[in-house]
């Protein structure tokens, strides 16, 4: 199934303006303008070293841009810490997992609620409004069910497979109920069946929670499945953008990234 090509939604939830990131002498990302609109799944693709993950990190605040701005839900968050952005409405997953191996799956997912609640105020590590615990448990349960891993709730993350860990990270991002989600190469380490399931879950999350998603991805099957709109980067430079099918047919994109591959048979 390919995402239907239609006009992009009006409301902008995440945008970069002239985003430039330098690592020493190299420009990992060069003057990138990018927009994610409300309830839209946007893909960020490009060859290795194109600056995709760097862009994602700059949006999340873990990388300091040399120039440019990041706008989240209509607010310029360029100078904010990652935690501040997360509380403002940004959730993310990591290509290399950021999970706590010795904690249970439910505890890892619950971190999305607990860390947001505690934020930068230490006393909130102890205090919570009445009923917070049950509300949190319900949210965690919902997120786990949405990702189809409710049966893993009590397992320690250290004992899980890569595919299961991807889902735990996704569940955590969903549990935070952020309006904007950043997914960093969610299919890496997954087999085709797992990738299919993952695509279905991401679409469900968007349908259920109304989140908007920016996803960095290499797997064109997944990109085709979920993304409505694509940005293509090459050596940190914005190569082209547009609705998924149009971009994947573009000659420049084929040359820079896809090569002259045939269309997958099932597409």
């Amino acid at each position: 199934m390919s995402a239907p090509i239609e006009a992009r939604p009006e409301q902008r939830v995440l945008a970069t303006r002239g985003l430039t990131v330098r690592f020493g002498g190299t420009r990992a990302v060069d003057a990138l303008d990018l927009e994610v609109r409300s309830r839209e799944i946007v893909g960020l693709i490009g060859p290795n070293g194109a600056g995709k993950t760097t862009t994602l990190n700059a949006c999340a605040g873990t990388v300091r841009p040399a120039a440019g701005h990041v706008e989240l839900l209509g607010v310029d968050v360029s100078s904010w810490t990652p935690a501040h952005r997360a509380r403002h409405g940004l959730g993310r997953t990591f290509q290399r997992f950021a999970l706590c191996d010795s904690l249970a799956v439910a505890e890892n997912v619950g971190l999305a609620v607990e860390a947001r609640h505690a934020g930068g105020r230490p006393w909130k590590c102890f205090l919570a409004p009445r009923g917070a615990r049950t509300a949190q448990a319900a949210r965690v349960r919902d997120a786990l069910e949405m990702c189809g891993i409710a049966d893993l709730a009590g397992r320690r993350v250290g004992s899980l497979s890569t595919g299961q860990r991807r889902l735990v990270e996704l569940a955590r991002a969903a549990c935070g109920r952020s309006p904007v989600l950043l997914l960093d190469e969610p299919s890496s380490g997954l087999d085709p069946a797992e990738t299919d399931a993952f695509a279905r879950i991401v679409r469900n999350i968007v349908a259920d929670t109304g989140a908007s998603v920016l996803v960095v991805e290499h797997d064109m099957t997944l990109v085709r499945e979920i993304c409505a709109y694509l940005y293509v980067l090459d050596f940190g430079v914005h190569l082209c953008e547009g609705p998924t099918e149009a971009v994947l047919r573009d000659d420049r994109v084929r040359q820079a990234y896809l090569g002259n591959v045939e269309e997958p048979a099932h597409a």
Partner: protein
Amino acid sequence: MPAVNDYLPFVVSGVVAGSLLGLAAVGLVLSFRTSGLFNFAHGAIAAAGAYVFYELKEIRGLSWPLAALLVLAVFAPAMGLLLERMAAGLHGVRAVYRIVATVGLLLVVQGLAAVRFGPATIPLNPFLPQGTVKIAGTFVSYEQLIGFGIAVVGVLGLLALFRFTKTGLRMRAVVDNPQLLSYEGDNPTSVRRGAWVISSVFACATGLLLAPSLGLDTVVLALLVVQAFGAAAVGRFGSIGATFVGGIAIGVASTLSAKFIGEHLPNSPFWAGIPDVAPFLVLFALLVVTPARKFFDVPGSNRTATGRAVTPRLHWEAVLALAVVAMLVPVFVDTSLSVWTTAASLVVVFLGLGLMVWTSGQVSLAHAAFAAIGAAAMSQFLDAGLPWGLALAAAGLIAVPVAVAVALPTLRLSGLYLALATFAFAVLLQQLVYPTQAMFGGGFRAVARPEISLFGLDLAGDRGYYYLCLSMAALAAATVFGVQRARLGRLLQANAESADAVAANGGDTTTIRTAVFCIAGFLASIGGALASGVTLQASSRGYGYTVGLTWVAVLALFGSRATVIRATAAAYALAVMPTQIHLDPGWYTAIFGAAAVAASLLSDRQFDLTRGWDRGRVASRLRRREFLPPRPVARPARAEVRA
């Protein structure tokens, strides 16, 4: 210009002392960069070298050149090789254990030296030729000249090694990427071994050259070479040249400030201490102002995954058994009840330390300093007329802003730098503030017990005070247990394992870490205040920086789960055991240190003393003679020899 002439001798002696500091610091940085293990025992190695020299020269009657040769050519390289094995064994263990291990080694050296040579300072007769020469209008002794010359030659030699030889090139490559070097057909182990040997020789040379002017004293010598930390910070724990220059700059700053303070601010114990702690001021200031990314971080050092459940469970049977035993103690012991009271107050201290080190993964080496703050504050608040309970609470609370001030600047860095900063803080406080009226005023301060009777028990009496401390310990245990089960506990655990995860979900990692440091400081302070009530006096004795190190080492011995049980066991081991089995206190220091080293090495249960040894020695030699193709890692060395 008379002013310049006045200061010139101080500049000269500063350059000389600083160059020795720089030499030690260069060794420290070299081993740190090549193996990723920061050697807290670097100063202790220097002290050990000086002690061996003393043993050989003064006790065994060897001539000084022979003794020096044995120290520098046999003892120091042997220590270097041993340290390389230790660093290899510590590869990939939890960051906490990497710190605990070298701290344990420091304790071993200090303890053994105290056993063999006694705790007092031993004067070491000058052995280098005496006499002075006039340079630039100021007299410089031959000793100073030789020391300076050795330091300069050592560091220049190292730089030349880096620049012109293959070994040096490999050393630089190991610093950058050990994995890559082994792919290229060179053996990182042999390179690391070389680096540790050089590091150890530099340390021992510094020890020998400094010993005649300072005397042999583990604490002073360790402290002095430990000041190399400051110089290493100037080189951002990476640059050899900058580290050496930093050492000289610190030496000059130290002597000049001594001159200035001696003239303008005499009779102030606080200011008199400044020159000694100049390197620590530098270290602390640099840790605070330098951006985090400029500091070298040990790859994989944030790995804390134990794979075990950490949320503690309540073991009712254990709690009940402990409670019953603790309640019955006064029935069975009589005169030595004070020991058990001290143990109970130490439990409070260790609970905080356990929460910090083992739940949150942050090593604080200044815990004894916080206990000292509590003891001093308690006596002062009681003097000021506060009722006992209020004074205790205030003594605890006063540690909180101090903890914030220490922690906040360094928590953005990795655990190693927090350990360094807390270590610096502990030494600063001990040298600068303990002797002032603000704390102990160089003597003893009276501490009273509460003049209250509860349930017919006089709390000021020995038995009453025991139960008071015991209930405080129980209260603290319940608090820590609660914290671990609560949101903060999960956040701490999550933060220790993946700070990225916490930040990406909106948790402010620095705030969380600061919070736990505050709790730990509070508990340490309360514990110190309670302990001072045992002897009815507070003094700087028992709160030296070595004590802080010992506490961390002892706590490391009791497994990584169940903070409450761990803290209780550590407190009783430390307080009660020495009163039951009478040994030289040095033995206890050494034993606790050695046990901490062993616990660290065994923490991932993969330690193998022989791993990498054959391959390193045999294969690299054969390769050098071009018997072997440059590919040493794939097959074991013995197979290659046969081929």
